[in-house]
């Protein structure tokens, strides 16, 4: 087979990854003459989890031209101001990782340096007192920041919690509206050109055949194309992130939904709680060397807010990523490309990053070695940066109440993380890689929250007199407290702008 112009994109799989990719390619590339076809099998279904996100998703929606309130309404979504971590640094401790920044810089010096200095003078106010996201989250408040809301409310960062099934359905309607062709069917074989190894077509049940020029593997953990046909090896990181299983279950909601995710550390992993408009999503991510599936299920079911509305869904996964995300004319996006446990809700973001990079490096022909190499390099960097941040949560702990925590507390960590932690711990120094997702707020929130925060401060922060320092920071606290107070409740905001139609669980399949 000779080099071929890319005119037909075929997406295998219609989960979150498949439909996000279809929607974006339809929006960006169909007007440039590229056709998009998506094949999915309802019989196989999707992974059915993946309901918490991080702020860049708002950009993805904006780029697609999706109206936020419609999206929230149709996916039973709620707003997410951050993540509460309970029992991570030690049993009985908790902290909040906010999506908006801490405080305001003064005289060009980062806020947290002043905060550290004030702390060294004996002041006990925590970082949370300087975070509108944290104050609003704990008060159950939400307001979408608009330009005329001023600097304090302007700091509010947010993402969403949504129903994964409804999100894929929403994107499907959107993508089909833009001209994406959907084919229902089971992929039985991946046809390859014998000389070049490039994929030529997908053979479906009932003797159907879908030809294409570029194939996107969104078949989930199966990795039907990237693994099965193209043989891209898996790079394993389970020695640093040993959790390899999860059990998920939805339950009835109790009261108004909180505007944040909760992550509670457990004996051999951690449990999530994701509040939606119609129900609450829950799951226990654990390591099967230290806990059985039955024990995990029992712990999960014993700690729900309300009665379960689905039966427990047991999942297995491997932490790591493909050595190559793009091989020949096949690009893996979503779970097929790799997986990092959902502790910081990064998987959907990595889908977004995969799509953005594919669009920006979109090849003209199947012979695109340079674009491919660049894509693989950039995606590897993205996975690596997220990995380091996740490892921090396990390493920075005092917990010694189970073999799982003993292992992660004592394990070696990557050099890239070790160097960063040393600087952060000494005096709160943080230098972000240009393409790194999590910034100083995130690193500080987790490090400080788990007892590994800065022990000193940059002497530049001594520039302000003690009296001025105290006054400035006290003013900041007052502004944040006031802003949180005047914001509407999360539920009131939803009721006013984006309330979803009620869903009866009696009609949902178990």
């Amino acid at each position, binding site marked *: 087979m000779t080099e071929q112009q890319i005119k037909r994109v075929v997406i295998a799989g219609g989960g979150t990854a498949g439909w996000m990719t279809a929607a974006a390619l339809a929006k960006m590339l169909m007007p440039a003459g590229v056709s998009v076809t998506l094949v999915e099998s309802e019989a196989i279904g999707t992974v059915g989890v993946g309901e918490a996100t991080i702020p860049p998703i708002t950009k993805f929606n904006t780029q697609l031209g999706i109206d936020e309130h419609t999206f929230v309404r149709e996916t039973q979504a709620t707003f997410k101001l951050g993540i509460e971590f309970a029992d991570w640094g030690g049993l009985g401790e908790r902290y909040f990782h906010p999506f908006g920044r801490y405080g305001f810089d003064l005289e060009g010096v980062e806020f947290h340096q002043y905060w550290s200095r004030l702390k060294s003078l004996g002041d006990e106010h925590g970082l949370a007192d300087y975070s509108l996201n944290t104050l609003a989250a704990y008060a159950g408040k939400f307001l979408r920041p608009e330009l005329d809301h001023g600097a304090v409310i302007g700091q509010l960062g947010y993402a969403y919690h949504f129903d994964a099934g409804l999100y894929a359905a929403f994107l499907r309607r959107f993508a089909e509206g833009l001209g994406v062709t959907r084919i229902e069917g089971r992929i039985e074989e991946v046809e390859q050109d014998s000389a070049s190894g490039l994929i030529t077509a997908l053979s479906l049940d009932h003797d159907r055949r879908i030809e294409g020029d570029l194939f996107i593997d969104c078949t989930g953990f199966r990795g039907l194309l990237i693994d099965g046909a193209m043989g891209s090896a898996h790079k394993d990181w389970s020695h640093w992130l040993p959790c390899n299983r999860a059990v998920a279950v939805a339950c009835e909601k109790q009261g108004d939904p909180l505007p944040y995710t909760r992550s509670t550390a457990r004996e051999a992993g951690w449990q999530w709680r994701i509040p939606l408009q119609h129900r609450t999503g829950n799951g226990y991510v654990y390591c099967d060397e230290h806990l059985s599936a039955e024990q995990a299920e029992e712990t999960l079911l014993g700690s729900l807010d309300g009665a379960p509305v689905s039966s427990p869904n047991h999942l297995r996964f491997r932490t790591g990523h493909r050595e190559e995300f793009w091989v020949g004319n096949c690009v893996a996006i979503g779970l097929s490309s790799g997986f990092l446990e959902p502790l910081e809700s990064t998987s959907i973001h990595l889908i977004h990053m995969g799509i953005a990079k594919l669009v920006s490096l979109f090849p003209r022909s199947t012979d695109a070695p340079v674009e491919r190499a*660049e894509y693989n390099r950039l995606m590897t960097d993205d996975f690596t940066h997220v990995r380091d941040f996740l490892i921090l949560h396990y390493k920075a702990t005092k917990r010694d109440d189970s073999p799982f925590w003993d292992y992660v507390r004592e394990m070696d960590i990557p050099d890239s993380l070790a*160097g960063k932690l040393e*600087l952060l711990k*000494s005096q709160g*120094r943080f230098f972000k890689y240009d393409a790194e997702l999590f910034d100083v707020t995130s690193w500080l929130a987790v490090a400080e929250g788990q007892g590994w925060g800065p022990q000193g401060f*940059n002497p*530049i922060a001594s520039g302000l007199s003690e009296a001025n320092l105290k006054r400035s920071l006290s003013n900041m606290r007052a502004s944040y407290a006031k802003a949180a107070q005047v914001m509407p409740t999360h539920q009131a905001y939803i009721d006013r702008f984006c309330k979803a139609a009620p869903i009866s669980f009696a009609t949902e399949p178990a």
Partner: protein
Amino acid sequence: MSAERILVRGTPVQAGVIGAYLASRWLAAGRALELAIDPEDNTAAPFVTRPSIHRLHGEIGLPTDQLFARCGGSPVLAAEAQTADGSSVQLPFSAFGVPRGGLEFHQYWLRASRLSEQADLTEFSLSLALQNAAHKPPLAQLAQLPVEFGIAFDRAAYGNALLSFAKAGGASVVESGNEQEQDADLVIQCSPDAGAPKWHGQELTIALESDIPGLEWHHLSSAARRFASLAAPLSNCAPEQAEWTRLAVAENERVADMRELLSINDPLASSRPALQRKAEVFVACGRIPTEDYEVFTPPEWLAALWARGVRPRRSDRMAERLPDAQLLDWLDQLRGQIASLTRQVQAA
């Protein structure tokens, strides 16, 4: 006696940049800063700064407009560098054309040039048009335009102004040879001959390069800023030293990439992996991949690749979303706008 003492050695402008910054951001009770000046600065060329000068002046409270007037300032919208074949290339600080629908302008230019003959890409740069105009617009007017700019100063005048500022901020200034080296906890050496930047033990060496205008400024200002933002007790700062050196060396690698691009015949055959990747990805699809800790901006890389004859084989698919006639009209309009804006500025 002070608990911590830093000695800076360099020419007036070198010690001036470091001294002014540290006097404002590091000096405090219990700390001393001494600037040992080597008055033998035989460099005749102006001291060219990059657009980051505005931020740095702002951070330490230096009045840019007053210094501009007092120190023979002139705006710089593009740095002029020499290439291997003896020609010169202008590296503009701001983008060519304007991006559209999330896609850089040169992608549209590439597509348009396949449809019909187009004026060279450089004709679509407002920065280059203004840089090459007979009269540069005044600072206040430039600040209103969508362009980034640095300032070229008279070296001696700017150096002296910075030294006075440092002095007013508490630094002491002495002529080289009269300094007290023995009780310095750290000696900051501004050295054009040092191979690589390094902070080790009691010496921090800033490796100065000046072959591309603005580089000397960049090395000095980022060394000072980074030192101040890392500054730890000087008696116990091994992680900070390692981090300072890591970041400075990483930046120097990016500079070395640019230097090689300007000097070798075939950038695609470069032995520097990051440069080779830049050239390859650019040829393949017109994108310019960036690395961590870049010094030069994407428009500067674009101009350098362009000047060295590196050309993309194709434009981005997204450039095809614009119908042909609309695309060609748009390019015409843009050129017209750049020309008329340049005329207006000249006439003002």
